[in-house]
């Protein structure tokens, strides 16, 4: 069938459509017989499309646009996306199915879980998929009942009973319902009731988490209590160690010894869930929420204050009661300061405390970022260093170590080389490792240390980020490698 040729150039929309048509035909032709043929006017192309294609082929300006676009598409299709390995894929699969299992268990208890607002549901879906925190670690939340060939799952209907787990002991109060998985990534899903958890210090690669439908609590060698109702966390109290509380609506609250976190809503009703979402501020992963030192930000489920009352409260020293111990109090207590309130006794029935002030390492982290934004890199380096001193094993330490090194490099301080080396030594699998290696490589080139520079560039050459790969290859090229 011969096609007529359009005399006038097509509209932008039609030209876009023509390019897509040509692309699809080329794919079909190659798939059919491995070589391009002149099958422009095949039976499945309409007469108008055939005329459009014939014009594009014969018009110099349209041909130019078409060829340039095909070149762009060819390049775009060559851009690599690194896919997860099998282990990560299995983790993701397990997390999704287990989350749904927990939700189903929660929903069967009678709560409605969906609103009529599609946008709200979409945000909830994203948040439920993995609310992000400041930590650079992986941020799944895994519901209990993990369905994997390698892990067994047990639904435990407990009377008051202490159960030994791989990483410690869970003591469930009467009527508590929870599910748990096995080490190394032990996850306890608390459906209802109260459990006391005592976790031994974890080794590299091990994790211990307690999750509910709306919150994830991660621990690192600690004793704490979690109270939940119908899948919603009501209260978390820490006896010793450190616990990160991550509501699925966003944010992270890091609790130290003697601190507690209480939801503003004490009963889990559909409106309560909305209240939880409204009261917990959204804190994005690696996005520092800068809080000036004299304006503390509420990071818990407490009732929000007016700005003026919050500012007034900021100027007062923190309350010294049993449940408001801070990291400073712990240090003072360790030195025998008798004025520091005693740590709470979790075996006794106690009312939950007022929300704690933000941890000192978080404040230092925010201070560092404020200084970075202001271009004061010396100050930023000092603040980030303080984070790693205050909480060397804290959730912010790895990130702060990286930005400490970056701040030193931006300040053109020679200590940047040692800082990057130290970061990569302590956190070889950090998500910043590629960038750190590339930046260290360039610093070493300037310092005339080509052997180590080459090693650092080679370590960065397969980084997922194209800019890092590009920089590493440029570095090797600059070294003549």
């Amino acid at each position: 069938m011969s096609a007529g040729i359009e005399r006038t150039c097509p509209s932008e929309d039609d030209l876009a459509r023509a390019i897509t048509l040509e692309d699809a035909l080329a794919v079909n032709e190659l798939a059919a017989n491995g070589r391009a043929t002149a099958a422009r006017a095949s039976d499945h192309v309409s007469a108008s499309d055939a005329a459009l294609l014939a014009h594009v082929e014969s018009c110099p300006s349209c041909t130019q646009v078409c060829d340039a676009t095909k070149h762009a598409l060819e390049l775009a299709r060559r851009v690599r996306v690194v896919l997860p390995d099998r282990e990560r894929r299995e983790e993701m699969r397990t997390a999704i199915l287990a989350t749904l299992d927990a939700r189903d268990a929660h929903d069967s208890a009678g709560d409605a879980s969906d609103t009529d607002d599609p946008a709200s549901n979409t945000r909830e879906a994203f948040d439920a998929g993995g609310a992000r925190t400041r930590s650079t670690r992986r941020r799944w939340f895994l519901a209990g009942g993990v369905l994997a060939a390698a892990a067994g799952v047990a639904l435990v209907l407990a009377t008051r009973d202490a159960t030994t787990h791989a990483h410690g002991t869970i003591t469930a109060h009467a009527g508590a319902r929870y599910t748990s998985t096995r080490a190394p990534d032990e996850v306890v899903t608390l459906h209802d009731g109260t459990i006391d958890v005592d976790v031994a210090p974890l080794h590299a690669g091990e994790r211990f988490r307690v999750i509910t439908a709306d919150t994830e609590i991660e621990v690192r060698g600690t004793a704490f209590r979690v109270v939940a109702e119908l899948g919603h966390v009501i209260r978390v109290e820490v006896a010793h160690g450190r616990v990160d509380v991550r509501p699925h609506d966003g944010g992270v609250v890091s609790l130290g010894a003697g601190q507690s976190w209480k939801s503003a809503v004490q009963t889990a009703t559909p409106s309560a869930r909305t209240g939880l979402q409204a009261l917990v501020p959204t804190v994005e992963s690696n996005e520092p929420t800068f809080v000036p030192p004299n304006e503390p930000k509420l990071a818990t489920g407490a009732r929000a204050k007016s700005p003026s009352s919050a500012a007034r409260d900021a100027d007062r020293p923190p309350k010294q009661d049993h449940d408001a111990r801070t990291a400073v109090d712990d240090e003072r207590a360790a030195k025998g300061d008798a004025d520091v309130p005693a740590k709470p006794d979790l075996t006794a029935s106690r009312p939950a405390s007022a929300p704690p002030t933000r941890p000192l390492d978080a404040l230092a982290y925010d201070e560092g970022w404020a200084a970075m934004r202001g271009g004061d890199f010396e100050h930023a380096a000092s603040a980030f260093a303080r984070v790693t001193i205050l909480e060397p094993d804290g959730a912010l330490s790895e990130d702060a170590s990286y930005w400490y090194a970056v701040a030193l490099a931006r300040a053109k301080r020679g200590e940047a080389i040692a800082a990057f080396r130290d970061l990569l030594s302590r956190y070889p699998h950090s998500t910043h490792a590629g960038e750190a290696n590339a930046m260290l490589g360039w610093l070493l080139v300037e310092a005339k240390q080509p052997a180590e520079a080459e090693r650092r560039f080679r370590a960065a050459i397969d980084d997922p980020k194209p800019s890092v790969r590009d920089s590493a290859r440029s570095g090797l090229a600059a070294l003549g490698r």
Partner: protein
Amino acid sequence: MPTLVPLRRVSGETSALSDEALLAACGTGDSHALGALFDRFHEAVYRFAGRLATTDGAARDDLVQATFLEIRRTASTFRGTSSVRTWIFGVTANIARHALRSERRRRARQARFVESLHSVPMQVDESVEQRRLLARVEEAIADLPRDLQVTFIMCDLERLPATEVARVLEIPEGTLWRRLHTARKSIREAIERTTR
């Protein structure tokens, strides 16, 4: 005495089912069907998510996870006006529209602090130039407005039928072609600037 209820993963029975059948089973709350859908489409969704959130692995993982959770919730709304694959990409695109907006701003803010530390090379050879070109193309795609980016990825990179993409994105076909034209033009211009 506690009652122990062991749960086991079941696999294999779903392999003979079509995508549509699996999705329909999902809509009834069948977790095994969702697992099978995950096995079939996980890589495609991850690749799509990776193109939308290129520098943050956690954001990609979150987006993939959220996609399949949302699939379970909305599976019963699938009407068969597109392939299941296209429909799933539409779910991802919808979630990304709400969720990754602020992530991109955060990335951009932090990236500028380290960009200047990647120095300019002393010598440039052809292979380095080619890699630089690919990097520019990737940046050009990442810098596209979200609507253009999603349309470009679905139509030109994933090669999904344009009519189906228009349906799942709920836009007229004319709008889809306009977006494609604008996206392609941006990328062409980025290439021209790099090779000038």
